[in-house]
């Protein structure tokens, strides 16, 4: 899906936990998720901290979308 949406001209950021699989399916902008069953959250954190974590991952996704890349790039920090 990532590849076909990008082929249509949209920048796509893939938020996924198993980065090697994301690379294999051809995502060009990758933000690693927290864990497989909760890529954008952490049930061990208090609600406020979990929300802040999710927000920070989205901000990183925005940074990925606004960064020109030449090849597959993992935005891991």
């Amino acid at each position, binding site marked *: *899906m*990532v*590849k*076909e*949406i*990008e*082929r*249509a*001209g*949209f*920048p*796509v*950021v*893939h*938020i*996924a*936990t*198993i980065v*090697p*699989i*994301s690379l*294999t*399916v*051809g*995502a*060009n*902008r990758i933000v690693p*998720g927290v*864990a*497989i*069953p*909760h*890529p*954008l*959250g952490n*049930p061990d954190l208090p609600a406020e901290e979990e*929300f802040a974590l*999710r*927000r920070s*991952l*989205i*901000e990183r*996704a*925005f940074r990925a*979308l*606004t*960064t*020109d*890349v*030449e*090849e*597959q*790039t993992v935005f891991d920090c």
Partner: protein
Amino acid sequence: MTKRVVHYVNQFFAGQGGEESAHLEPVTVEGALGPGLQLQALLGDEAQVVATVWCGDNHFAENLESTRREVLRRIASFEPDLVIAGPAFNAGRYGMACGEVCRSVTEELNVPALTGLYPENPGVEIYSRDIYIVPVADSARGMKVALQAMGALAAKLLNGELQGTAEEEGYLSRGRRKNFFFAENGAVRAVEMALAKFHGQPFRTEFEMPVFDRVPPAPALKDLKGATIALVNSGGVVPMGNPDRIEVSSASHFGRYSLESLEDLTAQAFESVHGGYDRTYVNDDPDRVVPLDALRALEKEGVFGRLYEYYFSTVGTGTPVKNCSRFGTEIAEQLKADGVDAVILTST
């Protein structure tokens, strides 16, 4: 002398439960277990499955390097002559674990290793150059045939009898070349191939070219503050009751759902129907896969323009690449028609 085989499986095939056990750390069991029992029967007196090492799929995929080392240490302690992993069919995490185990065994223990994967399993692209991968069906319905094929290759590897091409010997090409003599010289073979092609008859190239289907990165967003951003996910998050009946595995379609006037995806109104991970956490709070609450906050602060009024959802587990490509194409058409600028795609 009886050869020694160590078998690797995940928590499910070890009989330790499904997704609720996917976090479990590596465990060693003496002898054969689960599909290993059938492997033992196929290997007969030639070889003995001396131990089974199993591990939860999430634990392996989320702690790749440390788990790989720990599983390798456990396997090495049995001094195997051969290691068999899986079969993992079309399972993404399990396929990766099997690939990691086999590659480590091959490279660090210098012992042959094989696994069984469906040809579309992402593990094939990652590991097929380094290990023996027997092509198997996409699900455990194909277990019997998979084990027979893996057992046959195992027997050949144990006896050092691998002579023919990858296809003849029953594994996926590792991209390696071997010198041997043909009856006809190259010129004759090339002309025969050209004639076969000309007459529309089947022929087989001797030099397969790799197929790269990479999409170049789209240009970055210039103006985040003016951008419309859409959410897509393969984690199966749908309105409660799954109105479009999206399949729990091997999805045949995707759904489009309104986010209008929603600030948050609540556990009362949304759920995941994905059959390939423990849905407890996402069903407690669907924003853990479709991060609506955080996006609404950022939208209000003016960090980006606006969130597209629908999100798209499907189930990524066991879904053929052909279907996924079609979903992507169809989703892109709708996004284009509605003036979306960029996409956040979340996967579990």
